[in-house]
């Protein structure tokens, strides 16, 4: 029954759009030069021209907005779901749908008081409901507003499949993960280039007997050192996080810090890593996890923590679990408490119709035109 209504509404939208296609088919040469964005407004029922997340509101719900290509690689070097990355490559544009959970989060972020302890927001929902995409939408908002974005693409990647596990030099019982840490630092550098020279370190860090980073040096130097010297990259990550925590929301030269963690339930739970004597490694024994947990506490101010739960990729969690307490466990819940849970639901009928228009009808048609013109040229 729902499909009948859907197809009926679809027919209405198709009827609106038809005259343009009728003319387009007959004149294929002109269609070559036509960009998608220059088509008249009848086609943009599912698209909005409002590409700035700060200005999006309830009226844009369900519509697609385009992330400007210049921003795309700086804002999202590593945050997007793999399917979405494929879609972006295929369609040559990054379009994100404006949905209720992201709008709610953005409105909270707009109205929050940044002199109070950090608010934690947790996106939860069933598999495939759009938690990671909502997180990315919020991250885009934060970066357009000039915040410093700490985006951890998947906390589960730090607790499993780690080939090299070095004992930490800083703390005897902890373990370092050099590859993961240096990868993350590289992506962090790409996202936050402009901040790296502005933020100065407040403390001296000693790496080895001969190497140290002095107080007052820019953060960029620390990050470059972490990327080049892979062995101490985990400690560099810890130092970076500590500096940002201390300096966010500071009165002079203060910036806002957004900590976006995907799959935050990986930080509490079990790992699949083993020590040399085959005993399992607890998550708190990993330097990266230890430092990230400190970021998620609300003892600092001047920013926000936005996290998502993820069952896919999680370890030892049943596949039907999606509610916060099931995935976070007792320890995780007590650490995150108090947080604002934001439920993410599956697509509504209207959203589904817009997706259908976007992918099958609109994109499919433009492909057909481009293919025809290409073969015609040849």
């Amino acid at each position, binding site marked *: 029954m729902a499909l009948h209504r859907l197809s009926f509404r679809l027919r209405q939208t198709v009827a609106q759009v038809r005259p343009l296609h009728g003319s387009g088919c007959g004149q294929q040469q002109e269609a070559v030069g036509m960009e998608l964005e220059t088509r008249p407004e009848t086609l943009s029922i599912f698209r909005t021209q409002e590409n700035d997340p700060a200005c999006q509101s309830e009226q844009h719900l369900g519509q697609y907005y385009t992330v400007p290509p210049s921003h795309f690689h700086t804002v999202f070097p590593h945050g997007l779901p793999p399917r979405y990355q494929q879609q972006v490559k295929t369609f040559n544009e990054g379009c994100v749908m404006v949905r209720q959970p992201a709008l709610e989060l953005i409105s909270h972020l707009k109205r929050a008081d940044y002199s109070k302890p950090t*608010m934690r927001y947790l996106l939860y929902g069933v598999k495939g409901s759009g938690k990671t995409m909502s997180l990315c939408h919020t991250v885009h908002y934060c970066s357009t507003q000039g915040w410093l974005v700490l985006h951890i693409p998947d906390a589960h990647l730090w607790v499993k499949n780690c080939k090299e596990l070095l004992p930490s030099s800083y703390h005897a019982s902890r373990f370092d993960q050099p590859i993961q840490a240096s990868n993350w630092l590289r992506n962090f550098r790409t996202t936050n280039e402009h901040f790296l020279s502005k933020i100065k370190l407040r403390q001296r860090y000693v790496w080895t007997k001969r190497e140290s980073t002095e107080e007052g040096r820019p953060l960029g130097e620390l990050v470059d050192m972490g990327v080049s010297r892979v062995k101490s990259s985990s400690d560099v990550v810890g130092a970076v996080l500590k500096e940002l925590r201390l300096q966010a929301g500071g009165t002079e030269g203060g910036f806002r810090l957004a900590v976006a963690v995907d799959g935050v339930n990986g930080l509490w739970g079990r790992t699949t890593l083993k020590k040399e004597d085959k005993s399992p490694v607890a998550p708190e024994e990993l330097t990266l996890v230890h430092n990230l947990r400190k970021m998620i506490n609300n003892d600092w101010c001047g920013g926000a923590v936005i996290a998502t739960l993820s069952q896919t990729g999680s370890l030892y969690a049943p596949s039907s679990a999606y509610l916060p307490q099931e995935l976070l466990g007792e320890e995780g819940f007590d650490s995150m408490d108090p947080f604002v849970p934001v439920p993410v639901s599956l697509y509504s009928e209207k959203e589904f119709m817009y997706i259908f228009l976007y992918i099958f009808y609109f994109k499919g048609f433009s492909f057909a035109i481009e293919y025809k013109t290409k073969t015609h040229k040849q």
Partner: protein
Amino acid sequence: MATRTLKTSILSLGRIHCHIYGVNVRNPLNRATYATALSINTSSQNKGFPDRGNRGPFNRRSRREAGDPRTDRMPVEQDWTAVYPTATPFRQGSVPLPVRMGFPVKKGVPPEKKGNLELIKIPNFLHLTPLAIKKHCEALKPFCTEWPSALDTGAKCDEHFPVKVESKDYVSAGTSLRNPSARIVHLRLKLSCLNLDDHARKKMVKLVGERYCKDTDTLAITTDSCPVRQQNYDYAMYLLTVLYHESWKMEAWESEKTVADMEEYSWEDSPSQKNIMSTLVRMQVEGEGEAVREELLGRPEVQEYRDSVTRLKNEGESESSMHQYRDAVKKLLNL
């Protein structure tokens, strides 16, 4: 010629049995009959079957015919208890119901009751119709005492006789009258009728373990370790007494009870309370100290938050409890 007339006269008679040796000309009364290989004109042929006279497997001469089934002659107002006075296997001729049972082969229907082994194999309760049971009750009445008229509701029974003892008696006719299952004694009572304080109740529930049902608040003790029912009953009463007295006692090691041992979540002194208190204290600009904490705890938003967290932890998670938690947090942190 004579034989021919004989044959026609025989054939013209309706449902009269005609038995030409070894052959059934027709199938009287739709009974299953034996098919034989001999045809009508075989008075001279034998086809391998020796003449055995009136004996032999296919002898028909002196066998008494079965009459109509009893069902044809049953009036509607009959006494059913006379048809099935005791537990008997199913007799298709005595049960006037068109019952069918079995697997319908080749898109057919389940086979009828006639010759149906499935119906005979299963237990039936045709001997226990309400009328039959009434008759049993009437027969047992002289041996019973009257139920006290003051105990007419279940609530009154529970109030005056909270402890219920149940045991079964078995009657059978066999080589021995004894049945070892008769020694089992079940003792049931509600814990609310015992005088237990909070600690004693929790300890009692932990002591009895599986024997306590939380939904109905019933403690059920089953004893079968002694050979005689009287002994089992005494043992059950002894267990109840011991449980009651032990649960009131407070041992020295009970003071080491940890959070993991607690039966339900209590918000006081939990990490959740500590977190929210520290957050709120930092959010307030005015000073610190006990008075501020007390004041914060007294606020309705904090109470709401406490209720939502307790509900989440005790009842488990669901969409509604998550929504309640969400609203409580938003109100508390002024979102």
